[in-house]
């Protein structure tokens, strides 16, 4: 099951945020390029959040979405999560999820 985020507006209405391949493709065709740098994410917020609304709430535009987004707490975290979710349709095609998760030792490690 793909990740979803449920947002609530001031009136308690719920909105489901999710990306499908169609919405990601539309965003790319409009010139969207994901940059996960937090300061850049804020610039991309409008396109990223609007894109996340497209799968379940097609008719919502930024005019409607902005007040809902601005009413949220921890918006940077929300954008980070959305950036992760944006990559999911591509990641699932690249074999993610097929690996043997019982394997204890991954073939890569993080070096700092």
């Amino acid at each position, binding site marked *: 099951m*793909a990740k979803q985020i449920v947002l609530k507006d001031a009136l308690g209405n719920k909105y489901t945020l999710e990306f*499908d*391949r169609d919405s990601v493709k539309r965003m*790319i065709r409009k010139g969207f390029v994901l940059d996960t740098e937090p300061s850049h994410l804020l610039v991309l917020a409008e396109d990223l959040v609007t894109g996340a609304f497209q799968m379940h709430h097609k008719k919502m535009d930024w005019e409607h979405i902005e007040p809902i987004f601005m009413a949220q707490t921890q918006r940077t975290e929300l954008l980070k999560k959305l950036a992760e979710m944006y990559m999911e349709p591509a990641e699932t095609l690249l074999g993610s*999820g*097929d690996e043997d998760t019982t394997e204890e030792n991954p073939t890569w490690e993080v070096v700092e």
Partner: protein
Amino acid sequence: MGGCGVTETPQKLLSIDELFDRAFPEYLAMGMTYEQFWKQDCSLVIAYRKAYKIRQEEINRNAWLQGLYIFKALQTAPVTVNGFAPKGYTPEPYPNKPFDFAPKKEKTAQEKADEEAQARAERIKAGVMSFMKARDAQKHEAELKALLEDEKEGVSKDV
């Protein structure tokens, strides 16, 4: 690279939408619909890939099994068909039922007792049947004898 005489064209990186477009026909071949690929849960492709793998393994297993049956058929072929068989070769009969794939489990004491009881019942039934058959045959023979004697007596009286 420089100086070695081989010109390498730089590998073009796929953009995400190109990746989608390239993968789409493959998933159509796996049985996914347009809606499922583009507009539904994006993780559905993982399940489709796993299902495809299972299907491929099944096809492979069936092909292997078919090969095994053909091999068995050749093994059991009579000498006239199997030209390489040595003289006096008697082929074993072709299996009269499909190979059993179910793992053999240990029989419980109850199952063993049931089987023995059933075998005993079958033996008794067979015994009774053969006894009845023998008795019927004796009776039939006696009747036939009596009939023949009656006929003989009738003939002698006529004479």
